[in-house]
């Protein structure tokens, strides 16, 4: 009893520092933000006033749908592109695949601000693309920077490398032997993909979706630099409400709302992981 009691104490002692850090750095701020968000910005009373305004104010509603739109579209596009790329890298032995394999993660080493300015230089109104097309005699160029398209483009730039890396490692874990025996049984390329490769990597796909989604929904730098003035993504809108209008409580409500959105993703993520642990 005494030894097991001692061991229990030791275990507790080992956990306490990390728990304290977690408490101070994560849990406390969340609780603080929740409390702040419940104090009405206008009346100073305790209640759901901030939230009600968040979902009734037309501009804010627009921001929310816009954010969800950008996030979901960017997430799905990133996933689609990185999954295709990962599959290609996993099964192709061409020199092209080898080069892509060496280069695809380079964007991860470019700081966000620099990358964003890079996009502006490339795709802006007077950017290289426009001038290049002009040389070729084409003078109509879609508006990319300061628009929805530009945001999606930036999100792709920031998320594809990481997602590809994640999915590549998942696909690397699909053994060749499984593919071989599937082909031996007569599976054609589609059956191979949908019955073997996809089921054996969808778990990591959820991880990728979760991380991309969370990264994009809370993104600030790129939307701040190349987003439109209206509507805005929540991150930028929140900054404005906080700094320009100095409405701490409203911005807290927005933060809590974003946190809830991410929690939903987190819930699905944990559920998927848990399900596989059961099997």
């Amino acid at each position, binding site marked *: 009893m005494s030894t097991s009691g001692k061991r229990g104490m030791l275990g507790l002692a080992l956990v306490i520092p990390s728990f304290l850090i977690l408490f101070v750095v994560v849990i406390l701020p969340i609780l603080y933000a929740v409390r702040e968000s419940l104090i009405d910005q206008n009346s100073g009373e305790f209640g759901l006033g901030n939230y009600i305004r968040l979902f009734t104010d037309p501009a804010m509603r627009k921001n929310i749908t816009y954010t969800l739109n950008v996030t979901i579209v960017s997430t799905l596009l990133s996933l689609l592109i990185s999954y295709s790329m990962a599959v290609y890298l996993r099964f192709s032995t061409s020199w092209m695949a080898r080069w892509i394999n060496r280069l695809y993660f380079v964007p991860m080493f470019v700081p966000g601000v620099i990358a964003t300015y890079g996009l502006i230089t490339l795709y802006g109104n007077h950017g290289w693309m426009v001038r290049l097309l002009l040389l070729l005699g084409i003078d109509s160029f879609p508006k990319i920077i300061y628009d929805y398209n530009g945001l999606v483009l930036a999100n792709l730039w920031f998320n594809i490398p990481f997602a590809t890396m994640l999915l590549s490692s998942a696909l690397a874990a699909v*053994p060749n*032997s*499984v593919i*071989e*025996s*599937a*082909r*031996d*049984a*007569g*599976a*054609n390329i589609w*059956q191979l993909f949908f*019955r*073997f490769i996809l*089921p*054996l990597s969808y778990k990591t796909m959820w991880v990728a979706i979760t991380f991309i989604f969370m990264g994009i929904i809370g993104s600030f730098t790129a939307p701040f630099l190349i987003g439109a003035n209206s509507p805005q993504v929540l991150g930028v809108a929140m900054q404005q409400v906080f700094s320009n209008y100095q409405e701490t409580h409203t911005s807290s409500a927005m933060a809590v709302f974003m946190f809830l959105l991410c929690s939903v993703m987190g819930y699905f993520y944990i559920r998927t992981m848990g399900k596989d642990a059961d*099997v």
Partner: protein
Amino acid sequence: MVQAQRKMQTQVGTAEQGDTEAQLSIRNLSKIFKTGDGVTDISLDVQPGEMVTLLGPSGCGKTTVLRSIGGFLEPDSGDILIRGRSVLNLPPEKRPTAMVFQSYNLWPHMTVQDNLAFGLKIRKRKKVEIERSVTEALELVQLSGAARKYPGELSGGQQQRVALARALLLQPDVLLLDEPFSALDAKLRMEMREELREIQTKTGMTMVFVTHDQEEALSISDRIVVMHAGKIEQLSTPQDIYDRPGSLFVASFIGRINLMRSISDGQHIAVGSKVVQQDGSTSIPAGACTLAVRPEDLYLTGEPDSLEGTIRQVMVLGHYAEVSIHCEQEHLKMFVPREQAAELHSGQAVKVGFHKFTAFSEVSS
């Protein structure tokens, strides 16, 4: 062996005009990996309903041959025909072969039931039919209770049996088995061998079986291909391979054998004080040679022309005893019936004789 040799010769020439068309025909297959290992000049005809075993030590190229047949390796040269049609440019999924892989290769995300049913499903079999076939196959490999389990929940031997059932269900023209019983215990292995033989006689399925277990090869094969360092060392019936090993390698690899250094003068071979007459079929040139005699072909004797030695050990193994004899600088092993063994003890001087032997010239091999 003579017959087998004739067969091999025909393959090199015009194999097409055989009396029966071979189910599987491998012609001068070569596959050398970048590392320099691989197989060279493999030629083999497997008749319909025949079970041919590739036998050889680890790394001799058995799996390489099998994977080439299955379509997982592209040969450097040579041809592979199934029912007279070259399959060389068919991908694995189009080849009429099914393989039991050395590492089982079950699909971890599917239950045993689904593992077995998959091949039938994509062949568009009826649902009830699939259900029935799968149940039958599971019974066959004694795993009826495992249908709902995942491969990760099975032992190695169980997984191996599922892999066998999965391949059998595909009813291929040629079934390729890569050491399919290696993970089973002795009793189950025996049962599975019998089961496999039974399936074969029942269905007439053609099988190429890989093993490094010579006992297994001897017991289930119609013919054995002994491989060594990427080449075919001998191709013949089990009986023939056992009785007339074609090379020193085969002699020492198949079964237990006593090897004795000896000297040939062209007509006679002298081993210690015993001189034996060479028979007509094997002519060993003058010089050093090796005599190979099976333990069961040695006997204790009073004959004058025999080997003199002393017993070192008598080991009773069931109904017979294994006797080790130190005999003119050689260690010999022989079997004697148990009653006779009772009269033997270590240190005892004995005389050993033999009639059946195989001689290998050291010059040629």
